[in-house]
């Protein structure tokens, strides 16, 4: 299996504690992610292009100067922060049409089941207990790949041209007409089985607001 160099995933890490920022930054770098760290929820929203007092999501989603220039594939935030907590940040991200597709992960040094379920209900993909380990970060890849897929699906593509049979697939497989087959050729998606490819594409392309739950995916990284 040939691995071509893919553009790295870019993670935005939010933590008010300098020490914790250094730790999460290094953990993410070691997991081959590009990292930007900020020390507050409001700075995070600023970085993402969302002005904190702005109430017009439509303007943002078509505006070229939002985070499209700096494409963020995941937000990882501490829960306990002064001012805007990680939970508040999560809510703001999920309420924004421009940002809600970005997966959010919450970190906390405290194991409070009510807190954990509240975050997951609000749309957090994962909840990590601190200290976060290198092994924990392997759980992030599937979530980040989702955003890359979604971004690709939003680009205009001529469907006619995309009927391709991958040489790597066996001849007995049905030729699938997938609009993004050229994208799917990339090694990012090689681990996915072709039946799951279809399912995954349908879920991502869906305009329905319900996001695919992690459990429905059978991705392997």
């Amino acid at each position: 299996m040939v691995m071509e160099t893919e553009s790295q995933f870019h993670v935005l890490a939010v933590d008010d504690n300098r020490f914790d920022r250094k730790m999460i930054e290094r953990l993410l770098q070691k997991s081959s992610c590009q990292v930007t760290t900020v020390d507050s929820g409001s700075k995070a929203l600023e970085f993402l292009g969302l002005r904190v007092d702005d109430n017009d999501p439509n303007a943002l989603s078509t505006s070229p100067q939002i985070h499209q220039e700096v494409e963020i594939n995941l937000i990882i935030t501490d829960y306990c922060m002064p001012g805007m907590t990680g939970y508040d940040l999560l809510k703001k991200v999920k309420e924004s049409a421009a940002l809600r597709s970005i997966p959010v992960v919450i970190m906390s040094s405290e194991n409070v089941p009510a807190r954990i379920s509240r975050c997951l209900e609000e749309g957090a993909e994962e909840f990590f207990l601190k200290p976060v380990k290198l092994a924990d970060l392997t759980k992030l890849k599937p979530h980040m790949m989702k955003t890359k897929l979604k971004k690709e699906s939003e680009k205009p593509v001529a469907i006619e041209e995309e009927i391709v049979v991958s040489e790597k697939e066996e001849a007995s497989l049905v030729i699938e007409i997938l609009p993004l087959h050229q994208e799917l050729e990339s090694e990012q998606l090689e681990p996915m089985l072709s039946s799951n490819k279809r399912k995954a594409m349908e879920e991502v392309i869906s305009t329905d607001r319900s996001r695919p739950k992690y459990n429905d995916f059978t991705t392997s990284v």
Partner: protein
Amino acid sequence: MNTTVVAQLQRQFQDYIVSLYQQGFLDNQFSELRKLQDEGTPDFVSEVVSLFFDDCSKLIDTMSRSLERPDNVDFKQVDSGVHQLKGSSSSVGARRVKNVCISFKECCHVQNREGCLRCLQQVDYEYKMLKTKLQDLFNLEQQILQAGGTIPQVDIN
């Protein structure tokens, strides 16, 4: 490169780090920390540890001031300091420091000033002790590298 010298130093390093784990100064999180260091970031562990000790010093100072006057203790402030200390000691693998923080938190919750002062003193002692131990460890590392050797991977499990 004098291989005997290197081997001796490596042995010393290994024994020393194992003893730190066995005596409870460090826990598994320290080895997680070492995993994050590589050729590109050869000073990561010492930098992080240094940052941690800086934090210890500052937080202990602040908490000490909050606890100073018996009639006017800001337990919220103290609790906030302990919370941070507990978090960072946990991230670094500073087991003894972390354990003192657990008791310290308890004393804050019940607003026991005397208990807090004792914990403060203990935390101060433990972090300084760990600081010396880790300094010795890093010195050993430097000696190994200067003698042309590599730092052994130590598996404590």
